């Protein structure tokens, strides 16, 4: 495999990537092409074991594709795994400080992000003793603190409470405005993220998310509980239950659901 080439502009291009583990393992990725451009959010959804995390690891340069290549990787890449390991012994403050210093930066941005994400027990608690949600906040803070380049988020909302999800959406939108290329993998589409591209990983290949492919969609009209804000979503029919559940959990009321 040729080494990933660097691009100062950000983003990344995945070209005809195939991946299987071992010589006889089943194919996880079967010819994935993907361009993640600076100033955009790309959301890749898929079921358990569909290869989303493998795709993210390939883009990050952590996993070597069996065939194909990744090019135009920027110098700065931020990677947030779903959660940090339970045996990480440092405090959240020490960990994000070390990660910032590895990039040659001061810890200010990462510590400010911990505050914005409202890390409940504070930054001076060992990551190992944090709850899943708070551990995910530390993982996100160290990645979001990276200078604009490529931002890779693996299931970033899986353990977050509704309030933290809202804050994360704002942070992702800010990173996009700062010209970062954002690639998000998610089991359930993140409500309100407004991705520039929404794809589904199925059978090892990327497909336009069902809504774009002309499949039946569901129109969901939401009203914010308390503030009366309105939001209309059009989602693939087979994902409407999950989106509704997520919306209700995040403080929205359902005004109407219409099949289109």
């Amino acid at each position, binding site marked *: 495999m040729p080494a990933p080439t660097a691009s100062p502009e950000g983003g990344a291009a995945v070209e005809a990537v195939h991946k299987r583990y071992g010589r006889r393992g089943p194919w996880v990725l079967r010819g994935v092409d993907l361009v993640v451009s600076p100033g955009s959010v790309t959301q890749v959804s898929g079921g358990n074991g569909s290869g989303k995390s493998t795709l993210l690891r390939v883009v990050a340069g952590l996993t070597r594709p069996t065939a194909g290549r990744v090019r135009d990787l920027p110098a700065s*890449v931020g990677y947030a795994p779903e959660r940090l*390991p339970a045996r990480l012994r440092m405090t959240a403050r020490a960990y994000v400080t070390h990660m910032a210093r*590895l990039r040659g930066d001061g810890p200010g941005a990462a510590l400010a992000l911990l505050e914005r994400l409202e890390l409940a027990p504070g930054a001076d608690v060992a990551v190992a003793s944090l709850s899943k949600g708070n551990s995910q906040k530390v993982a996100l803070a160290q990645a979001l603190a990276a200078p604009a380049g490529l931002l890779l988020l693996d299931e970033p909302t899986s353990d977050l409470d509704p309030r933290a999800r809202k804050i994360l959406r704002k942070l992702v939108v800010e990173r996009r405005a700062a010209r970062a290329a954002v690639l998000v993998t998610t089991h359930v589409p993140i409500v309100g993220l407004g991705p520039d591209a929404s794809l589904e990983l199925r059978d090892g290949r990327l497909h336009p998310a069902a809504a774009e492919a002309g499949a039946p969609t569901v129109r969901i009209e939401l009203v914010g509980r308390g503030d009366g804000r309105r939001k209309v979503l059009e989602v693939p029919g087979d994902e409407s239950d999950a989106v509704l559940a997520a919306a209700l959990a995040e403080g929205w009321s359902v005004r109407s659901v219409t099949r289109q």
Partner: protein
Amino acid sequence: MVALVRYLAADVARSQRWVAPLLVFVAGVAIFNMGAGSLRTTYADTATVLLAVGIWLTVVVANSEDPVQAAVTAVTVGGDARLRLGKLLTAWIACGLLTAVALLWPLVAHSYTGRATAGDVLSGAVGHLVVAAFAVAVGSFGMRAVLPRAGWTVLFAVAVALADVLVPHAPPARRILELSDRPGGSAAALAGAAAATAVLVAALVAISLAVARRRA
């Protein structure tokens, strides 16, 4: 690389997995300082202890991070090869601290016979650091990505360490033991052993990094 070594050292320090190899090393140094001969032979003996302990320490440093934690670090520093080299450098620096213990012990305890010269201490320092580099290179095969099972790692490490001590003229440990018996020693012979070790270290590290990369 300084920030990476600091981070890795902090992570390993918190793990406390360095305690056992440190104790074994201190015990080894203490034993070889009991009824010791000349300073040069004592240093050659403690360098041999460093061979075994250095391999152990390298495996500890290389596998201290959880795989997910290591993935984040690798992306942050710009690649897993850079992270792995940082781990090997951290292990070598840790061996440098052990080297200081081994060098100072006989000087403080006066546990050697004959005169001690600055040349003896210098050649002792070079000998320990050369053996440490070899130990780190052998220990790099204990990286999870190369030999994921502890049993194979132990077998491999013991076989290579024994071979390096037992095979005549094998650099660096056996060669340094042989040179320590020569009265007056030879800086040129030590430099030769160091050069041969450098080639071995480069080859071993290149192989282990390539295997780790292939299996990623």
